[in-house]
Structures are given as structure tokens and as C-alpha cells.
């Protein structure tokens, strides 16, 4: 039995070593940076596939899905880095940014920055069929999906009443992952 080991062990390890050594060696960059907004950006993208917009929201099956960010943008380049080039149900994604105080238009998913807390109600009242996402502490009425940090992990709560008012449908799969769901399924 040990004779086979004499061969198997070194060959096995040599293969592993060769595999790894042949990998290209790239530039050294720091990794200590927080992943928070990368994870939130990925969520923004993922949510799109679990939401059904009212009929006639899109002109064509390949019309783009517009993702907006309003107010001070916490994502920076990460939003583009993470979701650029991906599609949701065949729809390409387009990112739009709106300044502080500006009323967002022509978006399907909207990330509302903390900077917009003051005129939140007025802004939400002006939206139609838009999935609103925020990171308010505590959560605010009208924000459908609210990110929270829990044990160093990004989780989210869902306000179903706000979702229903906007005539959106959220899949039960998304609800089952939510930390808390407020309101009733319709």
C-alpha cells in the first residue's frame, strides 16, 4: 500500500503546484475595503428578476430596465462594475443618476440615498410603478425594500403594503429571504 503512496503523493501534489504556478500574477491591490456597497449593488440587480412590473410598463420585451440612484451616490463606480453588461429576463440594464432634490423619472428600480430623507414622501408620491430601495434606519414608509446591516451582513426588510400600492408583484422567493416582511401578500 505504501508503494503506491510513494508515487501517488508526490504526483498529486506536483499537479496541484503546477496548476497554481501557471496562474498569471497580477498587480497587488488592497482588499481591506468594505464590500457593503458591492453587495448592495448586486442585490439591486438581483431584485430585478424577482419583481413583476404592471403590464405595459415596457414597450418591448427587450426594452431596457432602468436602474436609478437619487441623491448622494454611495456606490460610485461599483454599480457599473457589478451590473454592467448583465441582463434581466433579456432586458439590458441602464443606470441613471439623479441629483439631490431632483425628481427621478423613467426608472424601474430606484435606490434612494440617505441624503433624500427630507423630501422622501413628496418624491415617492411622484413615482409610478417603481421599486424603491433605501437604507434608512429605521425604515421609512414608502420604501419597499430597506437594507439593514445585521452581524456584519447586508440583509433587507420588505414593506409589502408599499409594493402593493405601486401595483408591483414581488416573488415569494424574495420575500422568503427578507429579514422582515411588513404587510400582506395580495
Amino acid at each position, binding site marked *: *500500500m*505504501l508503494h503506491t*503512496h*510513494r508515487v501517488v*503523493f*508526490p504526483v*498529486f*501534489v506536483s499537479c*496541484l*503546484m503546477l*496548476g*497554481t*504556478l501557471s*496562474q*498569471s*500574477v*497580477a*498587480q*497587488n*491591490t*488592497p*482588499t*481591506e*475595503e*468594505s*464590500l*457593503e456597497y*458591492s*453587495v448592495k*449593488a*448586486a*442585490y439591486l*440587480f*438581483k431584485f430585478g428578476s*424577482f419583481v413583476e412590473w404592471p403590464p405595459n410598463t415596457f414597450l418591448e420585451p427587450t426594452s431596457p430596465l432602468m436602474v436609478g440612484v437619487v441623491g448622494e451616490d454611495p456606490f460610485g463606480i*461599483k454599480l457599473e*462594475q*457589478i*451590473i454592467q453588461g*448583465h441582463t434581466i429576463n433579456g432586458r439590458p440594464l441602464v443606470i441613471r443618476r439623479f441629483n439631490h432634490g431632483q425628481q427621478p423619472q423613467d426608472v424601474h428600480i430606484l435606490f434612494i440615498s440617505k441624503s433624500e430623507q427630507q423630501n422622501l414622501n413628496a418624491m415617492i408620491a411622484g413615482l409610478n410603478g417603481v421599486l424603491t430601495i433605501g437604507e434608512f434606519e429605521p425604515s421609512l414608509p414608502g420604501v419597499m425594500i430597506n437594507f439593514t*446591516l*445585521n*452581524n*456584519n*451582513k*447586508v*440583509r*433587507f426588510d420588505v414593506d409589502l403594503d408599499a409594493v402593493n400600492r405601486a401595483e408591483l408583484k414581488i416573488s*415569494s*422567493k*424574495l*420575500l*422568503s*429571504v427578507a*429579514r*422582515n*416582511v411588513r404587510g400582506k*401578500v395580495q
Partner: protein
Amino acid sequence: MISRNDKKHGISIFKQLLIPTVISMSLLTQAHGNMAERSKLVELSLEDLGDIEITSVSKSSQKLREAAASIYVITQEEIRRSGATSIPEALRLAPNLQVAHTASNAYAISSRGFNTTTTNKLLVLLDGRSVYTPLYSGVFWDVQDTLMEDIERIEVISGPGATLWGANAVNGVINIITRNAADTQGTLVTTALGSEEKGIGVRQGGKTTGGMDYRFYAKQFDRGASVNAAGGVLQDSWKGAQGGFRIDNSSDKQQTWTLQGDLYSGSSEQRLNDDRRVEGANLLGRWNRKLDNGHVQVKTYIDHTKREYPGSWSESLDTIDIDAQHQFRVGQHEILWGGGYRYADDKVQNGLTFAFLPEHAHLKNANLFVQDQIDLIANTLKLSLGTKFEHNNYSGLDIQPDARLSWSVNDKHQLWGGISHAVRAPSRIDRDIYAPAPPASPFLAGGSNFTSEVLTAYQLGYRGQLASRFTLSTTIFYNDYKKIRSIERDSGGVLFFANRMEGTGQGVELWGDLQLTQSWRVHMGYVYIEKHLTLPADNYNPAGVAAEGNDPKHQFSLQSSLNLPYNIEFDSMVRYISALPSPAVPSYTAFNFRLGWKPTPKWGLALVAQNLFDNQHPEFGTANNRSEVERSIFIKSTWKF
């Protein structure tokens, strides 16, 4: 059997491999494809996104992935999708463990071999509470339980973990971690009903106005008896109830604490006497404080457990434990040091067949450890040096040093190697047993000079991402055991325990994870183990070296998790365990299936079939009347609101 030459040869393989590795490591610098890593985030499921730790402040889980050790982490999602209703069944998910059902309420579980019904080289912790019994350094699996939905993860470390975890972490550590109460808010009700299994579990979680999270839970189960080879029912049916709570205060980010406790009782049938009864309670407090540079943790617990086997023996064990650790950084050094003290008061009521004497033992264990993790090249090459000093009543001071080197080739590939020295401290059975019990003169007695069993382990591992959807982890190990328990005969003809068995264990552990499509994940595992143990010619072990475990050479598993439309999940797992040598147990292949459906967000149903293609099969024990595992089919229902 192994000769001295072969043993030396094993070490030289290690030298041949490790030394060139170290040299080549220092010649290369490393890479971090941060960007590439981030763009992968969109490929994760919603659940997986919610499991990502976003900062490196709490480094524990990140460390696990990077640790220079063979670690498999069983996640809550894996437990859920396996349909496992008990901790031992969930442990079958770890490719680096050997799990065998030995009776309806008993398991033999080990890592890297040496599996017996009283496996003694594995350390098991439940939220940091050590659950091994000082009677034989093993685990009574029938009383290690919690609500399965409340388990955050189970870390399974194969190989020694003695420096950080302590004695008994010789061949492995199982670290069961329950979820923070903030993650178990709301109400949960689960029921299971089936051929072998009936159970109900309830949990209520909430938040106080002061920002504390809490949960209470209660569960009750009833598991059917197993059968013998002829299909006759063995009287080992088993039922139990358990309740408990956990309070977490994380409102102050600088300082968090946890208080948790459990209360349980259970009983199992036995053939000739009244039911065996078990009961117990425990209370654990843990306090963490972030410092400007590092953190401090203090943990303490009390544990009471009682076991009554009418007609045979009973035991009552009370344990109190306190430990503390402090982590800080100086330049390239990350230092973790700490210590602990445990006092156990063990009272045994002896029967006729065997006795533990003295009946009442006071067991004390104190330890001190330090570990220095040195960044030889930042983010690339890490050297970890550590040692543990541990003192116990029986063998006095044991020193358990450990050295590991880890090389992150780039963000996709990591190589590591280590040399560790670990001990299995004597337990009461090694020193205090007399069989039969006095006044009859004993045939077998504990060894008054029985000392710690010793392992020197050499390991080499690789883990990495071989393709964008394929990760692989593999470890080879060579274990050199000394002073393993043997049986000798004194001049009066009495057999006693000594430390004269020795030998080697070696093998390969390999597992991989393949995300075939966004909704289909496949996981495979393979372990190869061989042991070469020797006893001196004048030994009296009736079972010879087989006394130290009955292990399969090959163990293979394949799991598939498929998400289908309409919130349907289909999971399957097949595992093959090769034959056990002595006593002979035939090889077996078991198929488990689970069909899950979530008709509403708050309600889930699952149909679980274990050992579907097999009426019954044995997993352990001697042929004449061993317990066999039957097919089990049950329906599980889960409400969350």
C-alpha cells in the same frame, strides 16, 4: 503493518514536498483580482448575498476560508436542504467526517478514522461549550441538540486543532454555531411526521425596546426503533424534549454580549430494563469587546448532565468553565492569546459489570495558549506559530505546538501546509475503570500510569477556484501516532490500559462545488484513509489494533440542489461508504431525496426520503445483533410568520 523505514519515508515525503514549496513561495509575489471577485457577486443567490460578511472587522468566517487547515463549513442552507432532523445526521454533509449510525439514538462519529462508538480523538463544541464526556473523551450524541433551523453553521475541521481548541482536538474539531437572535426574529413552527420520525419545534424571536434580540424555542421528537439484520425490531426507540433561549445584545457596536441556555430530557427503550433516561441543562455567557487594536472575549458556562441506565450505571456531571482570549496586532504580527479553566464534578453510580472508581471525581483542566500569525508577505504569505500548554489531573502538563504556512497564490488559489502536535488526554475510562465492579476481582482495570496519546500531524492542502463556477479543496495528511491505548497484563493476570500502540494514519480529503447553472448546484466529496497501527507482541488487546477504530478506506458523496419553477426545490444526495474491516460491515450506498415546495412565502413543505432504495443496512458493529438503519420517509412543514 508498518515498519520503521516506512514511517521515516512518510516524513521524508513531507520534507521533499514542503521545503521546495516554501522556497518557491517566497520567490513569488501575489495578486488580488478584487474587481473580478466583485463582478462575481451577481452570480450569487439572494441567500448567499445575505451571508457575505461585508467588512473584515469580524474576520472569523473569512479566516475560515483562508485558514491553513482542512475545514468544511456546513451552512444552514445545506442543513435545510438535506432534510436532516438531528445534528449527527447533518454531520453526514461534511465530507471530512465518518458518521455511522450505531443504534436509533447513537452514532459513531470521527474524522480521519479511529471511529468507535466511543470515539475519543475529536473535540465537539456547541457555541463554544465543550460537549465531550470526561468518562471516555467522546460525545453522547443523543443529548447534543438544538432547533435545526437555529444553526448558523457547523465548522468541521479535520486534523489537529489543539493549539486553539485544546486537548482532544487530535483528529478533528466540530464547532456548531447557532444563529444570532437578531437573525431568528418572528415565529417559526416546524413539524415532521413520517415512518421513523415525529417531531415538532417552535421558536419565538423578538426585540426588546433596549435593542436586545432574543428567542425562545422548544422542540419534541420521537424516533422509531431500529431493526436487526433479520428485520426484528430492536428496542431502542428514542424520544426527547428540549427548550432554550438566546439573548444577544449588539446595540453597542463596541461591546456585545450573549446569554443562552438549554434544558433537555430524553429517554430510550432498552431490552431488559426500564428506559434509559437523560436530562441536563446549561447556561452560557459570552462577552466581546472591540479594542482600538484588536478585541477581547470572555466566555463562561455551566453545564449539568445526567444519564441513568437502569440495570447498568448512572452518571451525573457538573461542569464549570471560563476562558478568555485577547487578539491584537503589532506590525506584521497578529497575536491571539488566552487561557481557560474547567472544573468538572463527575459522580458515577456503578453497576455490577463495570465501575468507575473513585465514584466521585473532581477533574480540573487549565490551559494557556498563544498564536502568532505573521504576514511574511502582506496578503500572500502567512506563517502561523502557536502553542498550547494544558494541564489535567491525570497526565499533568501537555504542550501542543503547531506551525502552519499559508500561501495565497492569487485570489483564486491557496496552498497551505502545517505540522502539529496534539494530545488526547486521559479520561476516566483509561484510569478509573474496573470490570467487573468490586467486590468481584477485576478482569480489566484502568492503567494507573496511562498517559496522553500523542499525534504529530503533517498536512498539505490546496483550495481554490479552478473555474468561475468550480471550487475545490483538498488535503493530504500523514499522521504519526504514539502512545495510543493498548491493553497489557500485570503479574496478577489483570488486564490494564497502557500506551503501547503506535502507528500512522494517512489519506486524502477532497471536495468540490460546482454551480452548473444559476439554479443547479452540485457538490462532491471523497475521502481516502488508511491506518497502520502496531502493538508490541506481548500485548493483550482482545481486538488487536481494531480496538482503535473501524474505518472505511473510501468514502464518496455527491449532492445536488436544484431550484425549479413554482418555488420547488429538488435535492438529492448519494453516499458510498466502503466496507469496514473489523468487525466486518459491508459497504453501502445510501440515497437521500428531498422535494421542497413553498406554496406561500410563509409556509414551506418538504417530502424527505432517506435510504430510499434500501430497506435497511448496517453501518457499524458486530454482525450478530447490530442495529440497521431503515428507510425513512417523512413530511416536514415549516411556518414562518
